[in-house]
Each structure stands twice: as C-alpha cells, then as structure tokens.
C-alpha cells in the first residue's frame, strides 16, 4: 500500500491580523503549524499502515520553511516527504495550487491512496483535494467520516453529504479528503524527532515537473484575481433560520440577491 498525505503549513493562530494598508496577512512573528485538518489525514494513513502495511509519503507546497511540516509528519511516523517549492509558484489560487501539487505528486511516485484534510484553516475552500484528483485523473471522495473496509483493490468509506451519509466503495488509486474526528491524531514524538533529524526532505521545483510552462503556475496560472483582503467587519446582527439544507440554500440565495451580494 503506497499512501500519500497532503499537508499544508498554516498560521498557528486564528488571530492573524490584516495590514490595513497593503491588505496582506501579517505573518511576521506569527507561528505556523500543520493545518489541523491534515492531522486527521495523516493519522488515517498511519492507522492504515499499522493495519495493512505499506509506506507513507507526505507532500506539501509552500516556501522553504514549510519543510517544517514535513519534519513534523516524520515525528508522527511518515516515512518520506517532499516539499514543492519555487518562487514561480507564489500567488497560486485553488486551480494553480491543485495543478502544481498534482505535478509534484507525479514526480514523487505512484500511489494507491492519496489522503487530504477536508480543508485548510487559512484558505478554507475545501477544493484543492478534489481538484488535484481531477488533475491526476483519479476518483475522489470528499468529507470521509470513517473507513469501513479496506479491500485489495478498493476501499469502502462513509461520506458526509450534509443531510445524508452515503457508503461508497472506490477503486484504487483514489483520493479521499477526511473529516475532523475520523481518528484522534497522535502527538509528535520526541523520540522520532531524534531518529529523523537527518532525514531528507526532498525539494521539488518547477524544473522537476513534466509541464514546465510557467504560465500554468503561480499568479500566472491563477484566474482568481484577489482585489483586496480585509478583516471582516464585526457585526452582531443575526437572523436564525431553520429548515432542511435545500430550503435553507434557497432562502440564503434569495436573501443574498435581495441584499445585492449576488
């Protein structure tokens, strides 16, 4: 079983301030950590390995200091790791990010199972995992609540569909994004830290990719244009609605139209 886990380095606190002039997140002096949702993906991988054997690789994308989260994954039990890093990848949106990572994944090997957290705490889109699977041309299941059974060529999982839970079987290779709470993540081990302190974190840059066209990466490859980042106004007005997901969806859409947000 070859398992790949995707992890991201995110700000260590939710109290990140936005510079009112430049609209950029003030990251100076802010600690970083592994995206908490990714811990569940990594824990899922570790449990599967304990039961069924195999190897666990981790991959991340970010500036060179993001190698820290790979090291942290080593401290939890991952076998190998790589960081996709290149100045040319800066400013990537969901589309460019998922394409970049999928290029990196191809370089790292072939995998039976790719595991992601369901979303990150900084971007919060929950789209990069599924978009990667599309780029890799493999099936994916998002919001996996639990793993019911591992078979030789497939896996049976419970998937959260907001108002229903579906049980699905999916063939390997595939990608799963897992929900918080699928397993309680273990803590990083100081013993493993000592053992893995010299273990390599492989660096993957644009020149390692099959597709070396710069236009497909970073700001160039990102159709999303961010006009401005600003902290949301604190607003204590609230309305409470009840109903099914569908009813509430319609109600929300018409409300947003009334308010001319859409």
């Amino acid at each position, binding site marked *: 079983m070859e398992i790949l886990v995707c992890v991201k380095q995110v700000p*260590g*606190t939710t109290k990140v301030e936005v510079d009112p002039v430049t609209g950029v997140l003030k990251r100076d002096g802010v*600690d970083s*950590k*592994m995206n*908490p949702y990714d*811990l569940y993906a990594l824990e899922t991988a570790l449990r599967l390995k304990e039961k069924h054997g195999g190897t666990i690789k981790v991959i991340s994308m970010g500036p060179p200091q993001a190698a820290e989260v790979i090291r942290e994954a080593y*401290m939890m039990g991952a076998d190998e790791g790589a960081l996709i890093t290149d100045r040319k990848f800066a400013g990537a949106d969901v589309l460019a990010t998922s394409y970049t990572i999928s290029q990196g994944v191809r370089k790292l090997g072939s995998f039976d199972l790719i595991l992601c957290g369901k979303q990150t705490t900084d971007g919060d889109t929950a789209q990069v995992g599924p978009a990667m699977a599309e780029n890799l041309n493999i099936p994916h299941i998002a919001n996996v609540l639990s793993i019911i059974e591992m078979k030789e060529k497939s896996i049976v999982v419970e998937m959260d569909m907001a108002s229903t839970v579906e049980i699905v079987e999916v063939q390997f290779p595939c990608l799963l994004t897992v929900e918080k709470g699928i*397993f*309680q*993540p*273990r*803590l*990083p*081990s*100081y*013993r*493993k*830290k000592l053992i893995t302190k010299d273990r390599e974190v492989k660096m993957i840059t644009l020149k390692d990719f099959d597709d070396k066209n710069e236009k497909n990466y970073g700001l160039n490859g990102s159709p999303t244009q961010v006009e401005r980042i600003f902290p949301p106004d604190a607003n204590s007005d609230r309305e409470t609605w009840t109903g099914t997901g569908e009813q509430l969806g319609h109600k929300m859409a018409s409300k947003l139209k009334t308010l001319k947000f859409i």
Partner: protein
Amino acid sequence: MEYKKLDAKDIEFLISLLGNDRVYTGEEINEDFSHDEMGGISRIPDVLVDVNTTEEVSKIMKYASDNLIPVVARGSGTGLVGGSVAVFGGIMMNMSKMNKILEIDEENLTLTLEPGVLLMEISKFVEPYDLFYPPDPGEKSATIAGNINTNAGGMRAVKYGVTRDYIRGLEIVLPNGEVLNVGGKVVKNSSGYSIKDLICGSEGTLGVITKIILKLIPLPKKAVSLLIPFPNLDMAISTVPKIVKSKSAPTAIEFMQREVILAAEEFLGKKFPDNSSDAYLLLTFDGNSLEEIEKAYETVANICLEEGALDVFITDTDERKEAVWSARGAFLEAVKATTTDMDECDVVVPRNKVAEFIKYTDELQKQFDVRIRSFGHAGDGNLHVYVLKDDLSDEAWEKKLSTVFEAMYSKSVELKGLVSGEHGIGYAKKSYMKEQYGPEYVALMKNIKLAFDPKNILNPGKICQ
C-alpha cells in the same frame, strides 16, 4: 454555644435590607445550597440571601452578631471538604452575585475585583492586556474568594506558586460587621501581622471577603506541554525529582494513569491522543519564544528517556493542548462518574516522597479490596487520592473509608507531609488535622478564631472547632 433560632423578625430584617426577591426560605432554597461538590456533609440553611454590596454584608454581619445567628458565606459551592456547608443552619450569604471586575491597573499590575468573579473570567479578562494570573486550579467555575479561602494551588504551582502569592490586598467584613482593608496595591509590606495572609486559607471562618486586589504578572507568550508515557507509575513518578533537580522550571508536572484517562475518554466522549501506556507525566513549559521553551524541554525530555520513558509527545498547538488538557480538567468528574460515591484525600508530601506515597495507596487498594484512583500535581507533592465506594453498603463504606483514610494520613505524617495541599480542612478533614497538629497548635488556631470572631457566628464548626 446556643445560637438563636431564626424567626419571622429576622427574615423581616433581611427583606427590609435586600428586598423580597433576594431572600429565600424553606422550599425556595435550591437543594444545591445544602452541600458542596463532594456531598456527604449536608444541611440546608434557614435562610439564603443574595448579597450585592459590602454594605449589605456588613449590615447582615452586624445583625447576626447582635442576635447570635450563625452565618456562612458561599461562592460557587465547588469545595470538597464541606467548608461552605451551613452545619449550624442560620444565614447563608450567596456571594456569587458580587461578580464584577472593578479595575485593571497596568501601572501597578493589579486587578481589583469582587469576590464572586469566577476563576475562568479572570484569565479571559487579563490576557488581552498581555497580563497573567498564574494560579490554575482545575475547577474553573470556582469563585476567586473561594480560591482565596482555601489558598487553592492548581497546576502551575511548581513554577508560579499558589493563590496566596497573588493576593495584594483584601477588603473584609469582620464578624461584628466592621469593614477592614488589609494590604493594598503595595508590593512590599512589613507593617505588622499579615492579616491578609491569615484570611487566605481561613475557609470563611475569620471574615467575609468583599473586595480583592490581585497581583498580575506579564503573560508568557508561548507554552508547550509534554505528555510522557512510562511503562508504569513507579518509573514515572521516580523521574519527577530528577526533573525538579534539572532546574528547567516546568510550570506543571502532573501524573496520570491509564484507568483515569479511559474514564475521561468515556466521560467526555472523545479520545485522548494516547492511551497505550500505564502511566504518564504531563509537563508544561512556558516562555517568550519557542526556542527558549524547546531548550528547556529538551533537557527534560532526555532525562525522561534515560529514566525509561517510552516516548515524549509534544503538545504544541491549540488543538493538541485542548485534546490533552480538556481530559486533565475532566478527571475529577470522570472518576466520579465511574462510581456511586467517593471521598478524597488531598495530602501534600515533600516532592521526593510522592512515589512512596502513591505506591502505598496502591498497596492499600489490595489490602482493603477497594478501588483507589489518584492523579495530581507530582511536581509540588500535592496528591488527589480518591477512594471509591462502588457497590459497598453505606455502613461498610463508612467503615472502610475511615480505615483507609486513617492509614493514608498516618503515612503522610510519617513522610512529613500535611493534611491538605489545596482543598482545605473544612468540616470533613478536621480530625485528621487535629491529630497531626496536636493540642498546642490547635489551641493557637482557636485563639486566632476567637480574636476575629468572639461570638463564633462566622462559619462555625470548621477547621479547628
């Protein structure tokens, strides 16, 4: 001494002072006010009143003093030794409505507040100012005056000390109704007997605290906890003196056993990050940068591995801390949920005797065929040992409990420990304290009580009485 039985005239006085809706009698008094968290000792007061001001407290005390009516001041009722139970009936003053934070003084680093402010509110209030109130007892819904009255310690005592170390000044109402200010915003004080330090730990027997000035310190910016599994409790606890000796100054050194962790998992309905080992130490380090903290904890991590720890787990993010510390905070309730009744021994022994004491309680478990659970502050020698009733009959339980307690307190005396580390003597532990202290010590305490409360109306029947 014969107290006056409350009559209609007394109730009338209280209503004239406080109004109808703050005076409760008979059925109107919630049963909760008849006991504290541990139960066992119970009596409903004759009248319960909500007080809002120092003046009201003063007038009630004056009236009670003139009429010889016993009075008990009560906070959240989270005590564990019956300290706030009105064992002679009379008037109970519910102090928990006096719950305003009055002033934060950033030039003197003090916080002035009313007695009913909850412990959990204090940290929430001061931390945005980058200030820190270090005492950290597990029960966060206790009131600050309750903490002061028991000199509560909590989990950071190893590095920061206990509640007494953070009291700058107090306003107290004496049993005769006079209002007295002791201490103040001053840092040093050699001006006669330190009454404020006497009030702290007096369990509501010397005066009623109506205002408090607390000392604050700059907030350490970062903290990391280490969860350290050991093959057995003996190895875990034997490592503690070596950690203390390393001078790396953790803020907390707690020990816990698998049974208690499993109980907490069941109680909270969520998993602890690791439950594969028999015993754990939980340490916290704080400081202003991660590098500084890392340096301190690596020394300790290496000591633990040399002493046979299976691993050292690093608890560095909010999510990880929550997973570990929420379980630690729930231990008492979780253990309680596994049995029908229990009682607690809160002894404190010299830090290098913790292992010996815990080993002894383990032997008692076998010797008396009773379940004993313990966890606590290995770093400051304060243990919380719980004897569980399970399916014993009331009679058999009483008998067994007193034998086991007798044995534990004798052991503690042998190890040069003391009866209570932080929960107090109250009503439940009086005999053990008297036994240890002997007549002269107790006579001195009685004379102190007499000096404050010559008519013996304030929380009578507690500590040395």
